[in-house]
């Protein structure tokens, strides 16, 4: 007997009504049921951070949450970062500082940094680097990701 549950996800302000099995993870719902494939999925058990999204403005691993647990919540993904065709300061900084190569990890890093900066706009550089240690990147060696996020953070603080 398969249980199906009706839920509503608000993804980047758009309503998605779904009927899902409880075992469907949030990342699978975002990608497969809602067609938002900007959020990537890597390890599917919490280690890599590729699936990081904001749930009610808080960065979370979307592979470590069931979609049913996000019923009625506001989800923000990389597709929602740019506003009116203008890239988010973090996205611009990643371009300027070569914060990506293959780009697989990029949506996760962007949402992680965007969420941490919103949670704590005065976060120290040291704590921000610690936050960035949450996610894995196999290409860049991290230094350019750190440079990009610190540059954007300083710009967003209006420094």
């Amino acid at each position, binding site marked *: 007997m*398969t*249980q199906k*549950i009706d839920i509503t996800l608000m993804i980047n302000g758009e309503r998605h009504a779904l009927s899902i*099995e*409880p*075992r*469907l*993870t949030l990342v*699978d719902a975002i990608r*497969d049921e809602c067609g938002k494939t900007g959020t990537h999925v890597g390890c*599917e*058990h*919490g280690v890599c*951070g590729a699936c*990081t999204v904001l749930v009610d403005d*808080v*960065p*979370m*691993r979307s*592979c*470590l*949450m*069931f979609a*049913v*647990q996000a019923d009625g919540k506001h989800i923000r993904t990389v597709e929602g970062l740019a506003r009116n065709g203008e890239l988010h300061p973090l996205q611009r900084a990643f371009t300027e500082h070569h914060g990506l190569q293959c780009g697989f990890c990029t949506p996760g890093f962007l949402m*992680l940094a965007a*969420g*941490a900066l919103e949670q704590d706009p005065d976060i120290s550089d040291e704590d921000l680097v*610690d*936050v960035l*240690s*949450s*996610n894995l990147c196999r290409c860049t060696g991290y230094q350019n990701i750190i440079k990009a996020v610190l540059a954007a953070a300083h710009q967003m603080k209006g420094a």
Partner: protein
Amino acid sequence: MAIGDSVKPAAFQYHAPQSVEEAVQLLGMFASDDGRIIAGGQSLIPTMALRMARPSHLIDINGVGELEKLSVSDSVLSIGACIRHAAFHRPVVGNPLGGLLSFVVKHIAHYPIRMRGTFCGSLAHADPSSEWALTAVTLGATMIAESLRGRRELHADEFFVSIMATNLAEDELLVETRFSLLTPGTRFGFYEFSRRAGDYAVAMALVTFELVGGLIADVRVGVGGAEDRPRRLPEAEKVLTGHPPSARLFEDAAAAAAAAVDPMEDQQADAAYRRDLVAVVTRRALERAAA
């Protein structure tokens, strides 16, 4: 593709109680059928993704408002089952306990996991390398468990049984954990060795003591990650009690700690290496406490 082909966790029935009473009823109904609580899901969902766990019912306590309690009264800090690790990023109380918890929390997993995983979930999960389990044992926390049979208190030194095993019965909800505030002069030191930022500890030590007339008093030395559960080491505490802090004394206490443990072996470290690490983390924790 049918959903069953693309989904990693096995199917389960989902329940979302709104009160402790309802959660305990559901647990009483389904525990014998491998029904389980899901709190932060940050340990349970990975084990389900690997199909090491295949619970048939999940009872989600995230909607139970009563469990969001984080309060101090009568010199006791109470931590409800829905309090996330991240609640401790800043001191929750103006007592050495607040500083201790905010120092230790930075060693747990990664930022997004700390935003979701819970304090009590860590204790219920009972990973031998859980920082909160070590904290609970070292400071002598009390756990409050509730089932259809009623409420009971468990003391930290009887709570942890072995690797991922506790004295909670399968139908018991861990409702809250309580810590007595520390005396104002309490010093603490924590040191963890892990392979990468956010990884579980290979070994770690938490120590607290006071200096009374320059001499170490009321000392607690706890070691985690080394054995199948965290434990206080009276052998090391005895070496320290009544002496002034010194490099030599800390070496002796560290050696006593290393001699007292029966280290686990796994792919990260064999027993001899872990024993060495116990000495190192104990000494460094003591140095931090004395600094």
